[in-house]
């Protein structure tokens, strides 16, 4: 397929030289710096942990199916819901989004890789290290049982003495480093590596949402890092940050946590919004309605996301003025969100709609996310929130935005981009069946929780007595949960079957609009044989359908005449420089993982040794030089 030439000699290799470009199999995956492979690693990990978190959810629902059940113990139940939340947020939705950032965003801007490929690999291995650390606590004396928000001072040593909280603390720190490194990488990639002619306002919305999400990540994660450091010092070194006996204020934890925690909500939903903004135009055969408004709304949501954190704390007694202010900002954030919904509907309106599986998920996203949004508005009002706080109404609300919103968007995205990732089509009849099973199962599980909550059933209770009128609704929720299990088994079966037997997709099965459909499926290691030149928004679409461009499309001022002629011709580049893989990102993460275990069990030689091993590998990494080889693409489009 390709001719390779000239491996570049390295003057320093460290103790683990870079593997050559011909390496295959396990070593290739362990050392890869290819954004597509790293994206797949992220995606597969997210699926794995999705089933871990899903198993936890099923145990929770089984315990709650009938009153006074004894399926699990109360303590184990607490571990289950804590780990379910932590897993689904940090180990499922975030890495699934990052999988698409890696695989798709880079293609959408016409780049060959992210700005820092080894740092990208490091992000993944740190993510995996954090995930392993967190889940290993199940087998090392029990997981944390203090809720995913880890409220101090219940997480202080005297109230939660086991190692569970320590595992949780350190794994979140490691996951935070992974997210921070990843987000910095994506920011630089988007700002600096767009194909020639791709101005910011010609960028696909998914790339835009990657950028906004990355900024949220780098600005929100440091805050929880500090909160976790303070709690860790309290637990390990006896400081007093949240010790009320010494004057410490547990409310400080809540502030720090939610200053992170609310932007985190948008970190979870904005990528899905980006995905939906890609799916709808493709299957309506229309440009996204109000593109700039959708982009600015996304940015406005990201910005406002930092101004609403105290709505998680309305019942803590912040006072009328603070509550009023945060109620207003919270309601204000519904405006850009509503704008987006109308723009999505406007995109569908009058389009030539093809009801493919991705479109089903996109429409599912819009409708279910709206229900979650509306219930969210009801607790934007402090008096309403006082009634709903800590009830199943809240559980219903955030599952509507996280499953009905994020997860529907992500699964839709997987159906949409699966042909690009594997070269095969997914989503025949089984895909439709999976969607409807999920849609029905999801609503059967979570809609009754609105009523349960308004009838006063509190969250996080491990069982409940008969006679409150909660029995039948709880049973319904549990039945729905098993329906969802069936749905996910159907969906995963569909993907596995499609990966093996699905029909070949070709580079552009959906008649797509954005640059990722302009390269082979799956893309060659260098992505684009020749760097694309961009002259318009939805450049590929206009190249394919020039007759439609002037009727329906927007016009970028000044760009039409001047570039149309050259749009088809790519300028000539020489052989493409590709990097070799590297061991150091993996070894670095391994060092920090070992150090974390040493720290938790306070075995200082292990803690310091692991840390030093990590730092040693950072030095080797910095010094091993660019390396790599040159590759000459042959004209092909699989």
């Amino acid at each position, binding site marked *: 397929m390709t001719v390779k030439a000239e491996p570049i000699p390295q003057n320093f290799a460290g103790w683990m030289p870079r593997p050559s470009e011909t390496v295959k199999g396990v070593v290739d995956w362990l050392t890869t710096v290819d954004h597509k492979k790293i994206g797949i690693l992220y995606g597969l990990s997210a699926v794995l942990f999705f089933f871990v978190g899903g198993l936890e959810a099923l145990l929770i629902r089984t315990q709650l199916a009938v009153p006074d059940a004894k399926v699990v113990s109360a303590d184990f139940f607490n571990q289950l819901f804590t780990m379910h939340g932590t897993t689904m947020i940090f180990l499922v939705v975030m890495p699934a989004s990052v999988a698409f950032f890696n695989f798709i965003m880079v293609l959408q801007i016409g780049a060959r*890789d992210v700005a820092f*490929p080894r740092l990208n690999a490091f992000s993944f291995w740190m993510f995996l290290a954090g995930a392993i650390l967190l889940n290993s606590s199940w087998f090392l004396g029990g997981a944390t049982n203090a809720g995913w928000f880890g409220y101090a001072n219940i997480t202080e040593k005297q109230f939660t003495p086991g190692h569970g909280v320590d595992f949780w603390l350190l794994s979140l720190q490691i996951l935070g480093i992974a997210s921070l490194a990843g987000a910095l990488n994506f920011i630089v990639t988007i700002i600096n590596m767009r194909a020639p002619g791709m101005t910011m306002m010609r960028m696909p919305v998914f790339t835009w949402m990657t950028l906004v999400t990355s900024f949220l990540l780098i600005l929100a994660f*440091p805050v929880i890092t500090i909160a976790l450091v303070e709690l860790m010092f309290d637990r390990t070194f006896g400081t*007093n940050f949240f010790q009320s006996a010494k004057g410490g204020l547990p409310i400080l934890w809540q502030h720090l946590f939610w200053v992170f925690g609310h932007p985190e909500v948008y970190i979870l939903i904005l990528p899905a919004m980006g995905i939906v903004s890609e799916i709808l135009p493709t299957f309506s055969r229309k440009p996204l309605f109000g593109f700039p408004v959708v982009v600015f709304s996304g940015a406005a949501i990201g910005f406002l996301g930092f101004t609403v954190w105290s709505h998680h704390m309305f019942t803590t007694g912040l006072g009328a003025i603070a509550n009023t202010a945060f109620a207003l900002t919270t309601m204000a954030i519904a405006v850009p969100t509503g704008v987006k919904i109308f723009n999505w509907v406007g995109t569908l309106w009058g389009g030539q709609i093809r009801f493919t599986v991705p479109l089903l998920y996109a429409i599912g996203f819009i409708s279910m996310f709206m229900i979650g949004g509306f219930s969210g508005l009801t607790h934007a009002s402090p008096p309403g929130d006082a009634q709903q706080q800590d009830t199943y109404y809240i559980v219903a609300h955030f599952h509507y935005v996280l499953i009905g919103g994020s997860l529907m968007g992500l699964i839709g995205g997987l159906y949409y981009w699966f042909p690009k990732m594997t070269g095969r089509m997914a989503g025949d009849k089984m895909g439709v069946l999976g969607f409807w099973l999920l849609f029905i199962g999801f609503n059967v599980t979570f809609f009754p929780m609105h009523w349960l909550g308004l009838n006063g059933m509190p969250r996080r209770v491990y069982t409940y007595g008969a006679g409150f009128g909660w029995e039948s609704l709880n049973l319904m929720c549990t039945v729905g949960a098993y329906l969802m299990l069936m749905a996910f088994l159907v969906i995963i079966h569909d993907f596995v079957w499609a990966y093996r037997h699905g029909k070949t997709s070709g580079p552009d099965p959906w008649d797509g609009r954005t640059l990722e459909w302009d390269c082979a499926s799956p893309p060659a290691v260098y992505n684009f044989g020749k760097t694309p030149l961009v002259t318009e928004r939805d450049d590929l679409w206009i190249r394919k359908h020039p007759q439609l461009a002037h009727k329906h499309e927007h016009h970028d001022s000044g760009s039409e005449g001047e570039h149309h002629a050259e749009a088809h011709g790519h300028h000539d*580049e020489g*052989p493409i420089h590709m990097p070799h893989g590297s061991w150091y990102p993996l070894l670095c993460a391994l060092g920090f993982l070992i150090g974390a275990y040493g720290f938790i069990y306070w075995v200082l030689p292990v803690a310091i040794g692991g840390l030093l091993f990590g730092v040693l590998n950072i030095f080797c990494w910095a010094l091993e030089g660019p390396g*790599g080889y040159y590759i000459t693409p042959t004209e092909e489009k699989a």
Partner: protein
Amino acid sequence: MSDALAVPHGHGHGHGHEHDHEVGCTGLHHRKIMMWAFLGSDCMFFGSLIATYVAYVGKSPIPPVPYDVFDLNVTSISTFVLLMSSLMMVLCLSAIQRNDIKWFRVWCAMTAFFGLIFLGFQYYEFSHFVSRGLTLKSSLFGSTFFVLTGTHGTHVAIGVLWLLSMLFFSYRTGFGRERALDVEIAGLYWHFVDIVWIVIFTVVYIVEFVVGHPGG
């Protein structure tokens, strides 16, 4: 971290110009944008720590209180030393941009040395405070003060390690003007850590002497 590859404006493909690969469509180097974004992130990091300190200042019932232990003269000197290290850093970058390796080494070593002096002052201050009964565990003031200034000190120590690494590797072949970007990025970090100290010095020390003491 220099294996960035795609060149959006990739006209031609000069072999052996690895650094050109890092200039993107903004005309800036990848790593420089990355450092600026990281520093933005670090603002939230120190912002959270300083916010914690401010939320608790004056609310710690257990002596010693800040006014009892702070010595504004000593800390002013160490602050001055750190500020001067920023000047050295500027001279260091200027030297490497002129391809003046000798003076690069001098100023790089001086920057690291001044950083070490600052850390020495911090060590002295910490041990002095501990001898006065202020520890991590003793009170809220102790916890917030040591974790805030200790985190800053860790940043300075990482900066010193970075500078010394550059100094060490400047003796390898091929270190010259083309590495000015590396020095500039280290400098961005160093100046940022300096600026953070100015904020900490103001909020923690100076404000204490202006408004913090009941009698003062």
